[in-house]
Every structure is written in C-alpha cells, then in structure tokens.
C-alpha cells in the first residue's frame, strides 16, 4: 500500500487526540512535535539525497559532530560573527566531505565500506581539534587561551529553538523535494540510483552527480550540526552521532510513501513525523519508558508491513 506511512501518521494523530484531547492537540504541543523531529529530519534529508543515487553514508552523523565542533569553535573561540561562522562551517564541512568523495569516487571504495572506516576517522578528528573535550561557552580553547567570545548570543541560541529550527527543517525538506522531484539533476540522481551503468551510458556524468549529491549532503549535515549545537548551547562529544539510526529509520519508512520506492523528501518527512508523533503521544499517555520503544517499533513495523505486505502487483513471486 503506497500510503501506509501517511495513514499510520493520521491514525496516530487521531488516536492520541481522542485519548489525550487538548494537551495533545494544542498548538504548543504541535510545536513540541515539530521541534523534536527537526534535527532528525534535517539529517534524514541529507541521507535522502545521498541515497537517491544509491549512495550510503554511515559516517554522516560523525561528520556532523565534527561540524558542530567547528561551528562552536569558530563562534566562541575565534569570535566570528554568526553568519560567518555558519558559512564557514558549511564550507569546511564540504571540504571535509571531499575525503569521503575521494575514497568513493577516486579510490572506488564502495560507499558502505568507505564510510564505515570514516566514522572512526571523524571521531578522532573532531576530538583532536577540540583537544578531547566538548566546546562550550566559558571554557578555554584547546590551546589554552581564553576564547574570543565569552558566550552564545541570542541569535546563535535562536537557531536551535522554535520557530527557527522548524523553519530550517521545512526549508531543507522543501529544497530536497523540489530538487529531487522537479529538476533535471534530481532526475539524474534517481536514474543513477536505479541503474548506474545505464545512467552513465545515457550520458549522465555519474561521478559528477555522485559528487554533487555528496556536496549537498555535506551542506545539509552542516546545517543539522549547527542546529544541534545551538540547541545544546555547546558542541558535545559524539553530540550528533546518535542521530544516524533515527534518520535512517525516517528515510526507510518514507521510502514507500506514494509508491515511490525510493528515498524521497516528503516520505522522509512523513517517516520522521510518524516517529515524533508516536514518541510525543506515548509520552503523554505515560507509557512506561521501557515499553515505549517497543510500541514505537511495533507501529513502524505495522506501517512497513502495510506498505510492503499486500503488494502483489508484479507476477514475480520470486523477487
């Protein structure tokens, strides 16, 4: 069923609204839900763009941790203005992503393998930069001097708070949706994801497009990292690492939305929203903490079963 995830989302909202009424259905709680899904969604959009041309990046979130170190140190240690810290973080993250691209495109190491090894590299790299600690306001720099800026500014803290983090998330989703769905470049990425050889033989510069996808991924990862950093008012050790699985889950659940059968931006948004609504609703219902993941997982499983189970469209029983 192509709309299983959307239906699951709808059902979840209705059930929680019936059971909890106003406390679930309030504007404030809608903001809660949107805010809680914002970071995961941003990372999931990055993963969507990588996965469109059949790429895979297990090191995405470890790289984001490095980005968050970069952002915090540019802003606090070097005292750069906010906009410049943001721009430089995005640029530097893209530069760091060149290593990933070098391994994948020049050395032709398969994506999974290369990024699996890069996870370790990023972990070490980030901590080497900070001297083994987190970067937060009021702490001396890695080389022991006083930071040029003593604290976060209002503006820097606003990035990670509603409404900004929500708007950033929506902007990322909208960008990825339009880019993948309505532009020639998006079409080329999907073609590569479908059959790389055929794409190359059709005159699509496959390496350039894989590179393009990588660069966009890096830029979005940097944005996600900045939001995480702002939200925690610090760049923490392994601060972004744990977003990998939730963001993959969002992409996976969203893959089937609308019968696309490929990673797509709206599906990813629906996937992330489903998880966020479940977490919020179940928390409000006071479900015991240790049963909550099981219920959440159960609903996801049901959504996936509904999406894939009844599909007998093609006669190939063996597929």
């Amino acid at each position, binding site marked *: 069923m192509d709309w299983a995830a959307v239906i699951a989302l709808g059902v979840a909202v209705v059930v929680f609204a019936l059971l909890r009424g106003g406390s679930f259905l309030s504007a404030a709680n809608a903001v809660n839900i949107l805010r809680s899904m914002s970071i995961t969604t941003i990372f999931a959009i990055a993963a969507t763009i990588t996965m469109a041309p059949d790429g895979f990046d297990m090191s995405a979130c470890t790289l984001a941790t490095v980005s968050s170190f970069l952002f915090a140190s540019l802003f606090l240690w070097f005292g750069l203005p906010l906009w410049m810290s943001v721009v430089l973080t995005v640029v530097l993250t893209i530069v760091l992503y060149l290593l990933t691209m070098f391994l994948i495109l020049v050395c032709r190491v398969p994506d999974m393998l290369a990024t699996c090894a890069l996870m370790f590299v990023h972990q070490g790299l980030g901590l080497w930069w900070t001297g083994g600690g987190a970067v937060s*306001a009021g702490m001396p720099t890695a080389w022991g001097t006083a930071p040029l800026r003593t604290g976060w500014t209002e503006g820097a803290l606003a990035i990670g708070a509603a409404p900004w983090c929500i708007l950033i998330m929506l902007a990322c989703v909208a960008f990825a949706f339009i880019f993948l769905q309505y532009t020639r470049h998006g079409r080329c990425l999907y073609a590569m994801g479908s059959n790389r050889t055929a794409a190359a033989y059709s005159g699509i510069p496959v390496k350039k497009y894989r590179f393009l996808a990588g660069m966009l991924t890096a830029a979005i990862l940097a944005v996600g990292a900045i939001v995480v950093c702002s939200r925690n008012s*610090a760049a923490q050790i392994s601060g972004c690492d744990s977003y990998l699985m939730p963001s993959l889950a969002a992409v996976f659940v969203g893959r089937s939305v609308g019968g696309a059968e490929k990673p797509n931006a709206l599906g990813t948004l629906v996937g992330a929203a489903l998880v966020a609504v479940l977490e919020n609703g179940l928390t409000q219902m006071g479900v015991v903490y240790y049963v909550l993941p099981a219920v959440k997982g159960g609903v996801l499983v049901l959504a996936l079963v509904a999406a894939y189970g009844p599909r007998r469209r093609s006669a190939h029983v063996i597929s």
Partner: protein
Amino acid sequence: AGTTQSGPDPAAVDSPVAGKKVAYIMQMAPSDIFQMWSQSAQETAEGLGMEYDAFFCGGSDAQWQDTVAQCAAAGYDGLLLSHGGQNYAYSFLKDLLEQYPDLKIVTFDTQFKDGSGQTQTLEGVTQFFQQDAQFAQLLLEYVCQELYPDKTAAGEPVNILKVWVGPNFLSPFDRRQEGYAAYEEAGLIHTVETIGPSDFSNAEASMADITAATLAKYQPGEIDAIWCCYDLYASGVYTALTQGGYDIPMVSVDICNADIEKMAREGSPWKACATTNWNYNGEFGMRVLALELSGDYDAIIDPMTGECASWLELPTTVVTQDMVSGGGINVTNLDTVAGESYTDRSWMPTVAWMAELLGD
C-alpha cells in the same frame, strides 16, 4: 507510568500534593542505579498521593529537552530532572518556566550555565548534586591511607593510572577532576598515564581492551593503583585486571549492583567505590519536589549546611571491599553493611504532613 496505587492511606492526613502529576526525566539510558533512583522516587511520590511517571532519554540531550517540553505540555505539575546538560539546561528551563509558570522543577546533577558559561540559578528551581570532588578525594584518601600508608608516610607519591575523559565531557567528571587535581598538586599521588575508552558507545568493552594493552607495557610495581572516574569504565578495567592476572588495586566513583558483585569476588582488585545512597537520592528529590508543590520552600534544607537553600548536596560514603565481601550484598541491601554515613537519613527534608504520610 508505573502502577498508580490507590492514593494514600485514608486514615492519614490530607496530602496537599495529592493528585498532582509528577515525572522523573533522566537524560541517560536506564541502568540499575537509575532504576533504584526511580523506584525510591516512585514510592515517595505515591506515598504522598501523587501520580508518577519515569522517562529515560538514552543519553540524548535533544530527547531530554523534547521529553521535558512534552511533559510540560501534557500537564505535569512537577518534574524531577536528572543529568541535563549544563550548557543548555538554564536557557531551556528558563524559557519553559516562562511558558508554564506553575510548573515546579527539581534537578539532579544539572548545572545552570548561561550563554557565557556563568553559573546561574532559576527562581523556584532547586538543584541538588553529589559531592563529586569529594568522591575523588575520599577514594584517593583511601588509596593513600589504607593501601599505601608506608609510601604516603615516607612522602612518596603513589603511582596512579588514571581513568578519566574530558575536560567538559560531563560536568560531574570535571568536578571529580577537581578533587583529583588537588591530591596531585599536593604531591600525594603521581599520575603515570591517563587513559579513557576509545569508543564511547561501547565504553566498557573498549575500556577493557585499552587497559589490557596499557598494562602490558608496564613492569610490575610501576603502577600502584588505578583510579576510575566512573564505574562503567571501572568495570572494563576490572575485566582487564582479572583476565590479565594483575594484582593492582582499583577504586572508582559510583556503584551499581554488578560492581558490588565484582568487588566481593575472592581476590578482587576492586577495593572501593565512592557513592551516595541510591535509595535515598530519588526519595530526596521527590520530597523536595513535593515541598515545592506545596509551597514549603523554607523546609528545603541542604544536608551539608543545614540551611535552607536552592543548591543542595548529598552526603558521600566510601564502600570498601571489606564491607561487601561477606556475600549476599547488593545495592538494595548495601545499607546493612555500609556504615552510618550511608544509612543516615536525618538530613531528609520534611514537614509535618510529609512525616505523617511517609512515616518518618
């Protein structure tokens, strides 16, 4: 959620907090000590006629913030918050209290630092802590005085392999470092090397491997003792020591059930743990929260100073191998052996109605 029992004893006094909804929100993943925490908090809350729920956030700061915001939206009256990040907790809770002015909050192990890293307080919010610096010092005192009295008397520093990560990894670790540094500066100890796990998501196993590799390069006698800032890391150190057949004493901050079992084993190198009473911590927090809810702010007394405060610290105890080696000891019955400082509850904040309900 937990089982919502049928309110307090009907014969008892009316509880001013009866029917209030409270939640315990822990930043880390569940483990047996935090469960004991939660259990004692739950018993206290239910004893006072409140509804109690617990949430764990798997170590994710974002999830901690989300859960706190969700509970505020869901109409909880009071929140007992644990291990929030020192960098964001202040601004986050400040905004939250502006949005929900009636919400009562008590925090554990959560420092408030503003955007510039300055320590702050929040009106009406009580913070309580373990005495982390003292943890470190009590353990080192134990090492110097009990394990190497001769060396210490001779003015020779004790050679310590230090297990620590940071700075700024976790605020409690930083405070433990303060206590450690004091001993180092005093020349009582000498740090041979500092090690930490290379993989934080698999810290225990990683610590075991790192320790095994590190020990292999030292000759017997080059390391007098191992000091661990955290019992999870200590657990890995213990594996390396026992499986490698080393006879080097180790001490650690914090305690859990598996730790006690390891300390109690015959010939175990794990000599001591510094801890607070985990059965009391949850109760303490919940009592403070109830006092906030009933408006009895003047009854919130710091155990250490005996004065009314919004910054409280819990008393510390060192649990030694001798205490637990008798067998049959676990975290729930540790009070039977751990001495007076561990079982003393005279510092529990209370007021008349609370004493009545909880049977103080």
